[in-house]
């Protein structure tokens, strides 16, 4: 008996994603952002999810070089004709809709890297350096937008995918050594406000009304949530605008104020389960390319969740990273849902054993089918 597509799908993953999207819409609404617009993005994202699921991911493998070129082209286009907002040049206007190519480029990079790494026969130094060479121009273009947050995600995706693809520990060690060398130079590479954020992270109380304001107000909001939260729409800090960027970067603080520790842990548990499901998708993927796509999406989402929640609660320095599926923002929402759809596409094309319903007689037959 041939398994139906329905049986092949990962059912838990879209359910979790849907629940997170609903929580995201509720939080965006409570943060007085344009929730209708976000709903439109979610619908578009759902369409992207369905399309990515239907599309055979294996065809991306051959399209990878073109994808890479398109990605660099988009990032260069931002550089040349993009909009500037909040001191950074990040947006392209496509038919009146603002598009943030750096969001899209994260997913494209996952696909490109998966294609590149899946074709390597062994974890050679040539392959390793090749992967670095692929990512370097992308990271440089995004970092100089400037968009530190997405750069962090891009670098994390590179390292994570190298790790999952079986790069030698020596290679990863070399990467770490490079990081140690670059770290002292970082303050000079960063923009003024990024450097300031780093200083504030190291000493949050230094300027409570100035640059430390964001961090302090976000922590106050999280703490004010307490165990059970203030209740949906009853948060003060978030609703009254004390939390900055309350619908995007600091959406978690707004969420935590309203839903408390219980809600926050539930949210983390949902993200955790979703991420485990992504890893499991990698584990059941029919080929190395699919496994690396699932692994790459796992690293991408994990990085964003950890960095976003971490900076909201003062555990990590502030970098502009949205919380996947929760934060307000079109490009990010659509990209994340499309990424999940791509993993679903992998699931749809995996081998499956079908176990017919046990008959009353207890006569069980097993048949493996493609």
């Amino acid at each position: 008996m041939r398994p139906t597509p329905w049986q092949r799908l990962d059912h838990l993953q879209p359910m979790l994603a849907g629940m997170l999207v609903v929580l995201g819409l509720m939080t965006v609404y409570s943060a007085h952002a344009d929730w209708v617009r976000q709903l439109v993005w979610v619908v578009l994202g759902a369409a992207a999810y369905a399309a990515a699921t239907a599309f055979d991911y294996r065809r991306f493998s051959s399209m990878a070089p073109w994808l890479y070129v398109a990605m660099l082209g988009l990032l260069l286009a931002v550089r040349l004709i993009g909009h500037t907002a909040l001191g950074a040049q990040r947006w392209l206007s496509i038919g009146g809709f603002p598009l943030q190519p750096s969001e899209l480029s994260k997913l494209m990079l996952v696909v490109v890297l998966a294609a590149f790494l899946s074709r390597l026969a062994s974890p050679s130094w040539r392959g390793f350096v090749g992967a670095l060479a692929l990512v370097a121009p992308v990271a440089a273009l995004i970092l100089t937008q400037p968009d530190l947050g997405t750069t962090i995600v891009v670098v994390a995706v590179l390292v994570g995918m190298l790790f999952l693809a079986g790069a030698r520990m020596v290679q990863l060690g070399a990467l770490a050594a490079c990081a140690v060398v670059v770290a002292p130079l970082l303050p000079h590479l960063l923009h003024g406000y990024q450097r300031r954020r780093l200083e504030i992270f190291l000493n949050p109380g230094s300027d409570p009304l100035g640059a430390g304001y964001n961090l302090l107000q976000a922590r106050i909001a999280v703490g004010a949530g307490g165990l059970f939260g203030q209740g949906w729409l009853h948060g003060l800090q978030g609703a009254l605008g004390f939390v900055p960027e309350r619908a995007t970067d600091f959406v978690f603080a707004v969420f935590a104020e309203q839903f408390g520790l219980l809600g926050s842990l539930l949210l983390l548990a949902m993200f955790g389960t979703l991420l485990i499901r992504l890893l499991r998708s990698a584990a059941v993927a029919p080929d190395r390319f699919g496994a690396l796509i699932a692994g790459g999406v796992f690293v991408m989402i994990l990085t964003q969740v950890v960095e976003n929640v971490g900076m909201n609660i003062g555990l990590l320095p502030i970098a502009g990273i949205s919380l996947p599926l929760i934060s307000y923002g079109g490009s990010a929402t659509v990209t994340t849902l499309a990424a999940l759809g791509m993993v679903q596409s992998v699931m749809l094309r995996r081998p499956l054993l079908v176990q017919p319903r046990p008959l009353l007689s207890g006569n069980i037959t097993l048949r493996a089918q493609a």
Partner: protein
Amino acid sequence: MIEPRWGIGRWIELGGIAPQPRWSARMVVAAGFLVLMIGVLTLKLAQLQVYDSSNLAALARANTVHRAVIEADRGIIYDRHGVALVQNTPVWNLQVEPADLPVDARLRTTELATLAGLVGQPEDRLEASLAVADPFTPTRTGSDLTESQVLAVNERLPDLPGASIAHHAVRTYIDPLTFGHVVGYVGPLDEADLERLSPLGYQPDEVVGKVGVEAGLESVLRGADGWADVVVDARGQIVRTIAMQPPVAGHDVYLTIDASLQKATLGALAAGLSRDGKTAGASVVIDPQSGEVLALVSLPGYNTNLFTHGISQAAYNGLLANPDRPLLNRAIAGQYAPGSTFKMVTAIAGLQEGKITPQTMLGCPAYLNYGGWVYHNWATYNLGYMNVAKALAVSCDTFFYQVAAMVGDVTLARYARAFGFGSAKDLEMPGVQAGLVPDRIWKQLTCGVPDLNSDSCRWTVGDTITFGIGQSALLTTPLNQAVYVAALANGGLVLEPTLVHLVRDASGRETATQQRRVLGTVPASADNLQAVREGMREEINRPYNMNYWFRAAGVPADGGGKTGTAQWGGSGLNTPTHAWFVFFAPFAQPDIAMSVFVEGGELSEVEAAPIGVDIMQFNLNNHAAIRAVTPVPPA
């Protein structure tokens, strides 16, 4: 189909038989990393949301919930018929909470410049006043805003974080030159006030009654401020109110003052003063049956509104430097010798102590000799023998020298005190002075010489006899004089004067009505009292003298009065004098008693008496209106 290569584990061939996921070691490590990260985040979240939660929640409350004070309306002061003597005028000010101003230095400067432009204040002054202010409390800046300024600021408020408009009420006094000395004024708390009143919950930016009824009835007039806990957003705009305590307005006070009589009294006094080229004087009119003060006038007056609407230093210095001392309420705080108006006390003492009877005839020579000193009568010729009533009518000094010498200073002082001399009356305003009743003990205590038996400390018979005509060191106030003449009018009751007719709370309910308080009864028999009253009636009926004023005013000389020209500060023929007139009417059932005082007056019959007659005339013509029952305010 796809052979497992490096890293990610062995792959199941399509169509293979094992559908179980194959977790490679690296995937397990990744899963472990995920669990570790979530664990770290959980720990930090637990720290924030459980351990630090109460602190951070308090910070959130401090951010968003602000307590706004709602000023209570101060009680209105009315006359006895409900004529408002003061009103609460709304005033708007710009207030700025420095902490809520933009953090960015350039934006901050721009906003301050905008604010300075809107309220018409130099920018550096605005900045300087904010620099010293508490950053977390709204600070009032600039002067009162006009209506158009309020509108202009209101329109821009959404773009001006930290700025808001404060509204409060300022006292505006009606006809302050007429009622100022009665109503007084309020002012900001000074250090002494703050120390005294902070236990009662006064805030440093509050006002408190400083002078007059405003000060005397502070506790009645002051309401209880309310508060509201409001939620404000990050820009300082009020979003909603979560709890509030409404303010309780102060009680309204209906004074015993009759506004029309007060105006008439002021008019009569002012006219009398200008007639004789004088500038200062006072008059107190009281109801001799109840002790209610119907009019209380001190000239010159001053504009009390200057004190509530902001007085310039120059204007204040001008008030202080004015030789007529407009800030002095002469009616309660001006202490002067009563002169001949005191003679009724000497007469009563002589009669009651048995030294004379109403029929006793004593001489009235041009002068008498006591202890080698000559004491003159006002007349340079002998007026012949006369009884006490006649002596009062012609105000014979030498007659009362003899009576005083017979009674003695200690007894005379006792009678003076029984009439209320030398005691500060409990009028509902601060600054009421007692005056002074001298006797031999007082002289010894205050002569300022160590040897109490020296000449300057010894009470002489000269002291006694001048005491008998209201001189010596005797001092009284126009208020005490009115109480004294009221006691003569009503048959011997010394009444506590009062300014409060009734008190109503904001809903119009009466919370207090004035009850007559009797301070004491004069130790005098009815016959003796009547003899003195007859003398007072005789005085005002003397033809070609006092009687002229009554005929000129067209009112019957039905009452009793006594003039007095009191010497002060020196001796001899050209000593400066004050003119007094004390008066009650009508004679049988007196309903008005008054004292009239003309500072520097030389001839009391000419300068002080006509003022009293004018007041009496007004009282007679408006008798019903003045005594009408206080109307109940419309609900």
